[in-house]
């Protein structure tokens, strides 16, 4: 819980600190305040805190309290048994790979949808949202149907020795599927905002296509790309419904962490389930924080340049 409240209060107090720094700034603030059309900071902030507390913080606190019911050694034992460790390795590595795949190909999809006009574009655009709309169990069953040994695609991969369903590869496929919309939808506005003049200027200054891409386009969409990447990663780490159908759930090999949590709940081991969940949450939070940091650094680096 502490980990969760610190960042929000931190940035909050920083803002307050900034405003009370100098008289000049204070003056600016009051000027700003007078110009606001909608009711201001107090009301919205109050609502934000209440809303976030009810929706996010309270359940998380409950989770941490459940886990706190265990002693430290019990907690550690529940959260780091060999099977659980194997599931962390599997979950985080497959989620990372899926998020990277999404970052690359999601970029491509977003680029195509924004930059080009072609018949069926709207249809394609709508298709991007499908992974959001489908119940995850349905996507899991559908993907398994396609990629299992007698499925549409699986039957052609099988003779090549490529097994997708019921292997870690299948888990990556499912995670990629559910994470795609995050990257595409966060990148689309960023790509639409790109100024073509900048690309033309780069070209006229003698930049190759590759240089234009790497030095002009990527830096300006990088923050959006990182956001999409982070969202897709977070979603993949927590995914349960679609993955359990395609993973095969073999202990030590294809068991994702969420499945172990469910299997602990099935034994009414609420505290043990909470312990694993807390561990997962802490690692995910650290990952997201790190991505956020990279994002901020990259933003700062290129702000001066562009």
């Amino acid at each position: 819980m502490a980990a969760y409240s610190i960042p929000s209060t931190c940035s909050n107090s920083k803002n307050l600190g900034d405003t009370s720094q100098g008289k000049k700034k204070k003056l600016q603030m009051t000027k700003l305040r007078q110009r606001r059309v909608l009711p201001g900071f107090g009301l919205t902030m109050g609502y934000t805190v209440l809303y976030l507390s009810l929706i996010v913080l309270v359940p998380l606190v409950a989770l941490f309290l459940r886990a706190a019911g265990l002693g430290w050694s019990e907690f550690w034992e529940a959260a780091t048994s060999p099977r659980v460790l194997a599931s962390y390795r599997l979950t985080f590595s497959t989620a990372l790979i899926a998020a990277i795949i999404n970052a690359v190909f999601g970029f491509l999809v977003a680029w195509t949808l924004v930059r080009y006009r072609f018949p069926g574009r709207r249809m394609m655009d709508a298709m991007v949202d499908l992974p959001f709309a489908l119940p995850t169990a349905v996507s899991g069953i559908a993907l398994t149907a396609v990629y299992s040994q007698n499925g549409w695609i699986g039957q052609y991969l099988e003779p090549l020795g490529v097994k997708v369903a019921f292997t870690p590869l299948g888990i990556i496929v499912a995670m990629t599927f559910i994470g795609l919309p995050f990257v595409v939808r966060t990148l689309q506005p960023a790509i639409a905002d790109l100024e073509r003049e900048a690309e033309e200027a780069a070209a006229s200054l003698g930049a190759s296509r590759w240089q234009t891409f790497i030095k002009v386009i990527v830096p300006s969409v990088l923050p959006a790309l990182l956001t999409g990447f982070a969202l897709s990663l977070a979603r993949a780490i927590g995914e349960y419904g679609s993955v359990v159908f395609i993973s095969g759930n073999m202990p030590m090999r294809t068991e994702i962490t969420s499945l172990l949590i469910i299997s602990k709940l099935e034994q009414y081991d609420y505290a043990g389930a909470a312990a694993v969940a807390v561990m997962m949450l802490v690692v995910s939070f650290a990952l997201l924080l790190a991505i956020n940091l990279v994002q901020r650094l990259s933003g700062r680096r290129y702000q001066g340049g562009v």
Partner: protein
Amino acid sequence: MLTRFSLSALLVAALAITTGCQPSSTSSGSSASIRTTDSSDSVAGPVTLLNVSYDPTRELYSDFNKEFIKYWKEKTNQDVTIEQSHGGAGKQARAVIDGLKADVVTLALAYDMDEIAQRTDLFPVDWQSRLPNRSAPYTSTIVFLVRKGNPKGIKDWDDLIKPGIEVITPNPKTSGGARYNYLAAWGYAQRQNGGDEAKTKEFIAKLFKNVPVLDSGARGSTTTFVQRGIGDVLLAWENEALLAIDELGAGEVEIVVPSVSILAEPPVTVVDKNAASHGALKVANAYLQYLYAPKGQRLAAKHYYRPQQPEHADSADINRFPELELFSVYDEFGGWQEAQRKHFADGGVFDSIYLLQ
């Protein structure tokens, strides 16, 4: 935006149809409420019962509820509405523990009921002695489902551990029903090995080495076996196997009955505290007792469960249940608590099979 949504909806529908899958799977925690009748005004005030059950009883209770409503109206002139909630047994039990206002629970195994009794004061811990037959009005067992013509010649449990045989079963840690599969195999091996537990463990380890996929629930395993065409044999509850054959037609799969198997006893009980809180205790008790009445027994047999009193059932239905030696969890394993602790708890026998590999 609007067009995008309608397009999405269209595509979802198309996808759902082409893949032939149902969104109500065991893992999505779907619990549908079905309002069976409209209540009209009557002398005694109308009452509503919530029956929290597990997945495969859906068809049984939708039939049974209609009969009970008719019976209760004739007997007491009171209108009763019965709502059904179905889902994975463990999930349903947790929902009741967390406050779902069930008036009766009808689950797959006594272990989940014990947990409700121990973790809440909703009904007494000796609930199981309140109704006949350890509170199981109908039973079932574990059988094998094999491909048409039984190409691998599977006849009994020891055929399942042969190299090259693929066995499909859900994960006993996440599926209550699958614990019966595991215990059935254990009981067979104990008999073969004259009670030598080390040898039995070896048998179980070999069996699970032949399992390529451990789905999280029974319906998932059925899909894997029937739709995906994976595996040579599916371990299934007899009632589910019979239902699968009826729905698929007898063209694709067939049932093999092993020499010995486990007696599956899905228990029922009244959630006293919830029922009493809205004056439904009497009707809730009558509801469960009616399951033991000739009508209830007949319907159980119709929906592929073995009735406790076969004489009340249609003989055509009874003929679907072959005779075989059955052992119960209570005689063989000392009850569910003991079986759970020894075999399925973290660090139990089932875990050790996989950690040793």
